[in-house]
């Protein structure tokens, strides 16, 4: 049984098919990259999977359990965490509290949650901002905070929406390293949307290409980048950018 199984999911907004009959599966411990031009429906697809919006048709299963259209907090309890492309910090709280709240939401006691949060904060490299108000963080800090909060909820599947965007190239590397250790050491399954092809090429076991809400193609990173339709979709721009 696949850990995450998405079947025939569609979502229409006022006659516009944002996600059109998308299906894929993700095996436990693997990393799936989702790419596609702007407006291809990647974020909408994320929202459908994570329960933020209910799909019109189709099903989402997490280790066999149907979570289609379930409330986001239930999806989270079932073991799926996500980050937001536009960062959503709890502005009035400190970084540590932000992360601790996420741990608390998963049943950890307050004291244990604070300890766990301190570990996660350390791990994502936010230690120096531990006690800063979250709404005072720079973009790079907010991106890491998104990641830290998601991690604190101890997910089995982690949906990452452009966690690398807005970071300087030098800041990207430690994040990518972190994602790899998450999979290798913690056994977390990752699904991530990313524009930075270098990251996609490096991290993904397989890649799904979306265009206009539909799956254009899917396969290993190497296969996908050779696909002429993918190249066309990116308007001739060389998708398989310079390697790392």
């Amino acid at each position, binding site marked *: 049984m696949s850990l995450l199984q998405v079947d025939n999911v569609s979502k229409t907004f*006022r006659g516009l098919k*944002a996600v059109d009959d998308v299906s894929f*599966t993700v095996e436990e411990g693997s990393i799936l990259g989702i790419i596609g031009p702007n407006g291809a429906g990647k974020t909408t697809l994320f929202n459908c999977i994570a329960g933020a919006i209910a799909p019109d048709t189709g099903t989402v299963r997490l280790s066999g359990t149907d979570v289609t259209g379930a409330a986001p907090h239930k999806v989270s309890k079932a073991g799926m965490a996500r980050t937001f492309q536009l960062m959503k910090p709890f502005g009035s709280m400190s970084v540590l509290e932000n992360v601790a709240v996420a741990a608390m939401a998963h049943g950890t006691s307050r004291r244990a949650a604070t300890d766990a949060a301190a570990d996660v904060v350390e791990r994502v490299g936010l230690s120096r901002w531990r006690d800063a108000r979250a709404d005072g963080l720079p973009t790079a800090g907010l991106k890491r905070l998104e990641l830290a909060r998601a991690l604190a909820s101890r997910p089995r599947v982690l949906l990452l929406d452009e966690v690398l965007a807005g970071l300087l190239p030098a800041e990207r590397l430690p994040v990518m390293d972190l994602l790899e250790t998450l999979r290798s050491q913690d056994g977390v399954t990752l699904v991530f949307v990313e524009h930075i092809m270098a990251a996609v090429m490096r991290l993904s*076991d*397989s890649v799904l290409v979306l265009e206009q809400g539909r799956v254009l193609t899917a396969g290993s990173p190497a296969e996908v980048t050779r696909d002429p339709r993918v190249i066309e979709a990116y308007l001739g721009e060389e998708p398989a950018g310079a390697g790392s």
Partner: protein
Amino acid sequence: MTDPTREHGAPPLDRGTVSTEEPPQTTQLTTPAPGGRRRAVAVRVAAVVAIAVVALGLAYWRTGNEVVVTQAVLTGLMIGGVYGLVAMGLTLIFGVLDIVNFAHGAFLAVALYITVEMVGRFGAHPYLALLVSVPLMFLLGAAVQRFILSGAMGKPLENQLLITLGLALLIDNGLLLFYGPNPQSARLPNDTGINVFGAVVTVGRLLAFAVALVLAGLLYLLLQRTRLGTAIRAVAANDSGAQMVGIDTRRIYMATFAIGTACAGAAGVLVAPLVTIEPTTGELFNIVAFVVVVLGGMGNVVGALVGGLLIGLTEQLGALYLPGQSPLLSVFIVFVLVLFLRPQGLFGRAA
């Protein structure tokens, strides 16, 4: 990289090649086709009319007397016109400045006393007070916005609420101080009744109703056909966007509040002959006006007029349905239903 055996299988590719059967157009998201919108409005109008017909039927069944029902409808419409008039200024302020203005009733009270002064001092026809009240209230509104409310723009709801409440207290008690608590009146000369299907309506109410319609029309034209109106609508839709295209939003806030207050000025004069004038009279209209604003959709001048008519009818017919209960109860029931089912108002577009 990780062990290739753990690599999951490719997603099942059970969909065909990419086709372009409905080219998505992002612009459609923001502006639906005008035809569709018109149709939607037509459907809503039809629904409202249908509900009204059922309501009338029930009222008739409840009273068993068609003259009473006719009178209720006629009175409801006349009062509703006044409610709409009061709500017009409020809805404009609510829509553009995003301020829940509790001082609107107090501004109306100021206009009532201006009318009393005009009638008392110069023996003028009450409605001539419009010539004084509207410009005066326009200036007052501009001053209040510029010197008091501008400091609260963008502040939390509770701060704005308390400031406008403070203003209302200030104005009401200022009137009490200057004019004393005795009720005043400004009656129309020769205000006779006109017979309509056995029911009656006074010339004064008809006149107030007609002027309400005219004012709504003028305000609508101002918003739709003038540069100022366009700028106001732009600020209402998106103030930071309006700022970016070079609109001086601070000026627009001031102008809008002034126009809204001038509407209260006009409403006050028109209402003056129909009510007993006391410092607190304006408060009577405030709550109902808020209900009307939500009903009509905030910022929607025509909606305010229609909402006012509906609330006038609700009040009158509600008194027939629920004798012994306050007519306000039925108004609030309608209000809550609208809030839940169509929070953008009967004639507003979905957010």
